[in-house]
């Protein structure tokens, strides 16, 4: 009885918000430099790449799929930006757009393998993870490209009205994603596919097309994040983005998106992302070394999921 009442009061997102507030309070207590505007804006800058990639990943996981290749698409787009600009001599804005489009194409390929050939998304994107990473390393011949013009660095290292450029981009895209997922028919379709794909198909929803769009966007936004990252570190390398997919999926799952599909919100992902970044930064500032931070994040992830399961109304994952 009490559990049911608590479950009604505490959605996963509320639990997460309280957890975030608690973590911020504890970490601020541990280090005076944590809650300063300078640090918080800087953390916003650092989490932009993972944040951007986690927006379409929310859509992907809500449909019941997964995309493990975002890190490799990230690396591929980063390398292609360098190749298009430096080796092929394209004008830099064109090169940036081309790199992002290649990311979209890579995502569409994922979509084709999942919808046309009916390969489970886990296997399909595991394979493309290796494929795209291999392409990136092969194309780059492991030479890095440097010497970008100064205006390019405004994207990754500059500020607009005092807030880092990529943070504005992240905020705008988060708002857009939240509106699409929560308030449009496309969003409904995505939830329906995750809840019961066969029923969705028989209800006349364009399931395959929705999946292609979702995987395509995942690749597109991963490539956009790569362009921002190259701007932030001013060079391109073929090993960029290795392990990105794990951070992205952690943020999404921490945000309450069910790995089986059908449940999840953008605001949950945003809260999960903020919690992860706050912990990584706050723990480092209080003197915890790198390995300790990873352990704590793992524990918090398990705790958040357990807590949310305990308090959920019908006990479903």
């Amino acid at each position, binding site marked *: 009885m009490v559990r049911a009442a608590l479950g009604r009061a505490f959605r996963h997102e509320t639990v997460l918000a309280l957890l975030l507030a608690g973590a911020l309070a504890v970490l601020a207590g541990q280090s005076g430099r944590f809650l300063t505007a300078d640090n918080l804006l800087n953390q916003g800058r650092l989490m932009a790449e993972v944040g951007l990639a986690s927006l379409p990943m929310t859509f992907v996981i809500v449909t019941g799929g997964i995309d493990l290749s975002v890190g490799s698409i990230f690396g591929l787009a980063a390398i292609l930006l360098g190749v298009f600009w430096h080796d092929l001599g394209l004008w830099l804005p064109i090169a940036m757009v081309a790199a992002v489009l290649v990311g979209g194409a890579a995502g569409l390929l994922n979509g084709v393998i999942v919808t046309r050939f009916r390969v489970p998304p886990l296997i399909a994107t595991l394979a493309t993870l290796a494929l795209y990473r291999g392409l990136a390393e092969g194309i780059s011949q*492991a030479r*890095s490209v440097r010497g970008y013009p100064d205006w390019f660095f405004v994207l990754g290292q500059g500020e607009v009205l005092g807030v880092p450029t990529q943070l504005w981009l992240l905020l705008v895209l988060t708002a857009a994603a939240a509106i699409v997922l929560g308030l449009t028919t496309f969003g409904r379709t995505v939830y329906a596919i995750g809840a019961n794909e066969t029923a969705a198909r028989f209800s006349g929803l364009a399931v395959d097309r929705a999946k292609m769009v979702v995987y395509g966007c995942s690749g597109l936004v991963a490539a956009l994040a790569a362009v921002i990252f190259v701007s932030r570190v001013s060079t391109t390398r073929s090993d960029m983005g290795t392990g990105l997919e794990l951070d992205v999926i952690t943020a999404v799952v921490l945000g309450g998106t069910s790995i089986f599909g059908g449940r999840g919100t953008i605001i949950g992902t945003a809260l999960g992302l903020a919690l992860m970044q706050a912990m990584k*930064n706050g723990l480092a500032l209080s003197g915890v070394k790198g390995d300790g931070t990873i352990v704590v994040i793992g524990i918090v992830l398990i705790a958040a999921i357990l807590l949310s399961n305990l308090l959920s109304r019908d006990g479903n994952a």
Partner: protein
Amino acid sequence: MMRKVMVLAFGLALASGSAALADSPWTGGDNLPTNPLACDNTPGVAVAKPYDGGQPTGAPDLKGKKITVVDVPKLIGIGYFNATSKGIAEAAKELGNVDAKTDGPTKANIDEQITFLDNYITSGVNGILFAANDPVAIAPVLKKALSKGIHVVGYDANSTPDAREWFVNQAEFNGIAKAMVDDMAKEIGEDGAFAIVTSTFTTPNQARWIAEMAAYQAKCHPKMKWLETVEAQEDNILSFNQATTLINKYGDELKGIFGMTSVATPASAEAVTQAGKCGKIAVVGLATPNAMKPYVAKDCVKSVVLWNPIDLGYAAMYVLRAAVDGDLKPGAKSVKAGKLGELQIVNGSEVLLGPPFTFTKDNINNFDF
């Protein structure tokens, strides 16, 4: 529609791949100017250049006061950086007014190294010691540190010169190149063929050494043949697999393997031992003596080139303290580094530790790191 997109993507990939193949003679070298030493033992001339490092802005005056220093190497958990960390701790203890800590990524990954540095800058350290995974990618975050008044000194692997005050170079790049190539030529002969196992093609120190080795080999051992360079990212298992692949791929043609990292050399020696080619394939490289003792004892490896990484960390800590105290200013010709004495400053802002050291069967047992 889908097929057209795929063909287009593939075509672009192939085109750019072939365009990219143009450059350096050996894969894995960078394209900075090289300066090979003479083929006999004439020592090189130390280059005098004006100071080209960066300076911190608004650094507080901490002469003689306690400072906090963080050391962020390429990765933690391998013998080489455990040794440099030990040297840094030793120097910190001797100086008495330094609180030094080593923290870094568990994989040689530049993204993570940048995040570590960023967090420590925010937490307000007074000094940063680093060994870079990528010289250009690490520059923006180091420049940010300088702009906040934090002193920055590099060791082992450099960044772009204006992103740090000083760089402690373990040995002249062309000196290491000469030692390695001469040792290999002695073992496999003047027309032997060899391959290289390195960390990644963009790691600054490895790339510099490979470029210098290519120049020296072209000058003094022109008939030796370079087969291939492979990446092994300071990972033990990957290094072993790559070395085994090289042995299987080139068969009898492969006469020698260069190990460019302290992880690649023992792994290559192990690969050669397990393939049963001890004595037929020479392994020459950079490694810590402890890792190589079993192979040197079995005569599988005849010589190991290195320097003392404990001394390297020790010197880096002293250079940082001198920079903080204002004792080491741009334009200086030498710096006092505790028990190591006066170290020369070459190339503008590089502090030279000394000549490379070759470990052989006769002396390897005298060292324990």
